[in-house]
């Protein structure tokens, strides 16, 4: 297919604020002094709970929302003040996909993908070849003449993606694109987004409330809470060393390892006077994730280790392990020092008697 190697554009939020006037003259700050720069060609995730302001932030990139203060720039062009034809030109450089797909029910797969090209005033013969290419790219060649109502959620999102790519944008915005899909379909749609990012080099900015989505495709992540970015950085760093409580609570669902109920219920914060066990979270990152450190702890130091829960997974391409263990209180300090010396991170969670 004809592949125009489009270079992704950078996105910059510069001290962006958004306040809404609510009834009774009270104003509500949806976004508060948000500054964030999104690297060109990268996949960046913004994660937050509903109402945190992530959707407002995303919609500022194509001017569907305007900031009440600050600026939003795409490829150095200011979107936040653009109007009319200028704004429409910027929007053609920014594709968008939606949680509920937002496809025209009265147009076929091909018709839906053709819509942005018709809007841009592309000539009919060019639309035809471009649409055929796009349908092929998203794997819907057998369904070109069918209507969205006849297709599955995953197929509908593929139409949405093809439609968003039609005008060869430099940025793709994803508004909870996989939140209405089942886990398996989510994986295939995420894989498609990853391929597109790799092949076309376009910048992808996505919002989600699922850390798993960020882990699977985003190289960078920003965590938003009550209209503020509380933490941002490379996904691997955020996953392995989260600084903010909100980030930790998002991570607890993914990287595992919540305490089993029988331990959690007995957990106390004061060391028991008698014999007891200290509960420790051990985090393995990068190259250390595959070293048999716990076995060495027992073999070399003679300290018995009780494994309570654990998981080893990949973030990006790097392995990451997270284990919950318990150690005898008397030897816990020694054991933790041993593990820390070998490049692991430990965190004391409490004691069980």
């Amino acid at each position: 297919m004809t592949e125009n190697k489009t270079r992704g554009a950078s996105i910059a939020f510069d001290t962006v604020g958004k306040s809404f006037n609510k009834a009774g003259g009270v104003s509500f700050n949806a976004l508060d002094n948000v500054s964030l720069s999104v690297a060109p060609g990268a996949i960046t995730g913004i994660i937050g709970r509903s109402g945190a302001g992530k959707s407002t932030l995303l919609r500022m990139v194509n001017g569907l929302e305007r900031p009440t203060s600050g600026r939003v720039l795409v490829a150095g062009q200011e979107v936040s003040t653009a109007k009319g034809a200028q704004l429409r030109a910027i929007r053609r450089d920014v594709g968008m996909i939606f949680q509920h797909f937002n496809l025209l029910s009265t147009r076929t797969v091909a018709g839906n993908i053709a819509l942005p090209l018709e809007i841009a005033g592309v000539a009919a013969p060019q639309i035809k070849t471009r649409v055929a290419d796009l349908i092929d790219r998203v794997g819907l060649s057998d369904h070109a003449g069918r209507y969205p109502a006849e297709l599955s959620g995953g197929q509908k999102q593929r139409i949405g993606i093809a439609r968003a790519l039609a005008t060869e944008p430099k940025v793709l915005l994803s508004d909870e694109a996989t939140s209405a899909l089942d886990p398996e379909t989510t994986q295939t749609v995420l894989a498609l987004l990853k391929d597109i990012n790799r092949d076309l080099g376009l910048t992808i900015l996505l919002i989600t409330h699922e850390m798993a989505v960020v882990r699977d495709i985003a190289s960078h992540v920003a965590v938003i809470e009550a209209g503020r970015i509380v933490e941002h950085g490379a996904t691997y760093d955020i996953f392995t060393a989260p600084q903010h409580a909100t980030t930790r609570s998002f991570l607890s669902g993914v990287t595992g390892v919540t305490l089993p109920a029988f331990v959690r219920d007995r957990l106390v914060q004061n060391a028991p006077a008698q014999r007891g066990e200290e509960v420790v979270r051990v985090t393995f990152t990068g190259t250390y994730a595959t070293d048999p450190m716990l076995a060495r702890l027992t073999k070399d130091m003679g300290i018995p280790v009780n494994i309570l829960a654990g998981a080893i997974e990949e973030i990006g391409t790097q392995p990451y392990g997270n284990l919950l263990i318990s150690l005898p209180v008397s030897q816990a300090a020694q054991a933790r020092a041993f593990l820390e010396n070998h490049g692991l991170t430990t965190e004391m969670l409490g004691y069980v008697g």
Partner: protein
Amino acid sequence: MSANLINLLLEATGQTLYMVAISALFGTLLGLPLGLFLATSQRGELVSMPWVNKVLGLVVNATRSVPFIILVVAIIPFTRMVAGTSIGTTAAIVPLTIATVPFIARLVENAIREVDAGLIEAARAMGATPVQIITKVLLREALPSIILGLTLAIVSLIGYSAMVGAVGGEGLGDLGIRYGYQRFMPDVMAIVVVILIVLVQLVQSIGERIAAAVDKRAPKSGGQ
């Protein structure tokens, strides 16, 4: 039944069809854009003109509040100005059209407002102009509902057309009153009623068929 009576019935049916067809045509030509405007011109909408929207909304409501038979008589001077006469079938088209325009406008407005706001947002995100959003998204997506609305408007026009006998509008309703009621001919009344029923059934089923043909949404039952 005499051949004379059959002629009268045929003539009256023709007059009714003529009145309904022409006033439905004019009603749609005026009501469709009006409805489109009402649906897209509130504050913050595509062609935000809140004051014009409010004024037109008031006019529409006022017209719709006047009982049809009063409207027919009240606008006689206007009818004479437009049609050159205030009596007869052609003259009757004027009040029929005026009564239908706000009705169709409201039906079209409702149909347009039913279109998922997400589709408007998607079109805006593509860089569509307000005119493109209206022609490529709103009108097309609302088409099944608009057609059902027009069907409803035509059915009620058939009913209204029976009242224009008051200004010499003729047609089936007028025949029913003058022969069936005033000349005590219940058979004429019965035939008039049957023809009206058949007309309404025809209009309704044709309208539903066209609406179903352009509707590509999932069927209500057995959908996802």
